């Protein structure tokens, strides 16, 4: 069988975001008639496990590889080995600090989080205390979203104060508990930003369990719970990337690379802010997942 084989090594697997990326990748695979596999570690800290995955993927002599680096430096020797063997690498989600990838399909997390900050500022009237419930303290996406939000607040909205940042590992229950603690400690809190699906749902859950009204919650990514929360007003709005698009574009770029076509260095799949008003718009609905 001469079917093109493209393994995708992602940053995660069981999370909805990565499953949405997988969906997009599967669509592209069906469309271009290639075979893909999709794998990712349990959490975004286990850098070495991801490299073992990459090594195993290389053993199968793939025609191209899609790779979302947990740490872009750590994987460079293996990536170099791959590119020397003539296997093109397509980076996705976040880039690899090197010229090895033939193309990078990504969302600008930092810019997306800044947009969340702008929306937050607007909704709370430009002043007050806000908190961040982040999903990870050390991973690229965790840092970018946290910093993108905080830096925008600090630089543009001097009367807004980020009182606390806590990390719930994207675990809904943990994020629920820590949201409740934040609410207890800050009775005057005006808004909370949850930096991924699990965090955002945890925040909504915590707010609901504490029966707090009038609090502005801004989330990230989509998923059924988050969409419901936006529809029924518990969540003001959320940032969404285009995970399906990321997966699709990655596989597409890989196929093109195998066929020797030239590719743009970065493919920005974009991000959007959605709330109750535009959630059903076709172009938004297209990038949301359940």
């Amino acid at each position: 069988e001469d079917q093109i084989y493209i393994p995708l090594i992602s940053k995660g697997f069981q999370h909805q975001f990565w499953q949405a990326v997988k969906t997009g990748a599967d669509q592209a695979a069906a469309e271009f008639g290639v075979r893909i596999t999709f794998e990712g570690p349990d959490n975004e800290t286990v850098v070495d496990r991801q490299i073992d995955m990459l090594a195993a993927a290389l053993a199968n002599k793939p025609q191209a590889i899609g790779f979302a680096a947990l740490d872009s430096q750590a994987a460079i020797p293996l990536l170099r080995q791959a590119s020397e063997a003539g296997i093109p690498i397509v980076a996705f989600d976040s880039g690899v600090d090197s010229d090895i990838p033939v193309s990078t399909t990504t969302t600008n997390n930092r810019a997306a989080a800044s947009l969340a900050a702008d929306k937050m500022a607007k909704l709370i009237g430009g002043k007050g205390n806000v908190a961040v419930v982040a999903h990870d303290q050390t991973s690229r996406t965790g840092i970018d979203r946290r910093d993108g939000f905080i830096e925008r607040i600090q630089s543009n909205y001097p009367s807004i104060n980020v009182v606390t940042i806590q990390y719930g590992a994207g675990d809904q229950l943990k994020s629920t508990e820590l949201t409740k603690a934040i609410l207890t400690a800050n009775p005057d809190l005006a808004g909370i930003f949850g930096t991924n699906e699990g965090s955002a749902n945890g925040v909504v859950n915590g707010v609901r369990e504490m029966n707090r009204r009038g609090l502005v919650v801004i989330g990230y990514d989509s998923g059924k719970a988050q969409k419901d929360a936006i529809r029924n007003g518990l969540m003001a709005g959320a940032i969404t990337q285009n995970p399906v698009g990321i997966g699709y574009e990655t596989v597409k770029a890989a196929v093109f690379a195998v066929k020797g076509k030239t590719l743009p260095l970065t493919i920005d799949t974009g991000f959007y802010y959605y709330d109750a008003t535009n959630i059903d718009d076709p172009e938004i609905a297209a990038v949301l997942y359940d």
Partner: protein
Amino acid sequence: MTASVKPEYHKTLFFRLLGIGIHQKLLAFASLIILLIIFSVTSPNFMQTSNMIAILQAASVNGVLAIAVTLVIITGGIDLSVGTLMTFCAVIAGVVLTYWGMPLPLGILAALLAGALCGLCSGTFVAKMHIPPFIATLGMMLILKGLSLVISGTRPIYFNDTPGFDQIARGSVIGELIPSLPIPNGVLILFIVAITASYILNRTILGRYAFAIGSNEEAVRLSGVNTARWKMTIYALAGSICGIAGILIASRLNSAQPALGLGYELEAIAAVVIGGTSLSGGRGTIVGTLIGALIIATLTNGLRVLAVAQEWQTIVTGAIIILAVYADMLRRKNTA
């Protein structure tokens, strides 16, 4: 030279059911009380009814899991699969209720049955195949983690179509009777599970054999007891308690999150040991475990309310776990 904590039998019904020696056990609250006092002093927002309820609720899932582990630890075993088993049961409930659209009681029953069945598997590995409990349940932990993803299709299952499902943990029967005390049902369930488990441990043949097996399994076998069968029963019971935890967490999140659960086992075991149960088996109490779970929940909540930086929260939690167990050892040495 450590004294043993033994089920003793006391006068008042409550303490009889919880199986505690008042005098000895009141001392075990010490660490908890100290924590409460420290946090009350350092943060004005800590001592509010709503926050106390938040702590209780935070302790509920871990508490139920810890009770399950306590049963297994008393027989001299350990159960690392409680976290993923909880998730697995939640997913099963999701499949039955949401995918198949069955009525609520059937979903709950399915979760409990699934838990009991998986527990029975672990129990069989341990009792019949003589695989060390650590490995048998580590293997189960991985198997169940994978199965949850397979069965759910790596997607959360929502319970929106099952009205009342989220009220199982979130609603408050007590709050309806006494509006000033809106203790959520999840907490109530924790206490009901605790009292039932305590009753089983201290008042039934199953409990008696659990202690005896943990104390000297060979002697029990030579007394003509089918130790394998009783051990399997205990693991199955622990499994069905994980099923309750699965319902609780699913109800709180109004969804079954198939990827959750890893890491919950260590927190549960920590609660058990802080509560004075010996990891070598034969000794332990459910009240102790409850206190252990409350200590962990209070600590976590308090540090968050104080807005201690996350990395320092971890450090302090680690230190306090060591200290709490150390204090418990000293206490028991002195009251021995």
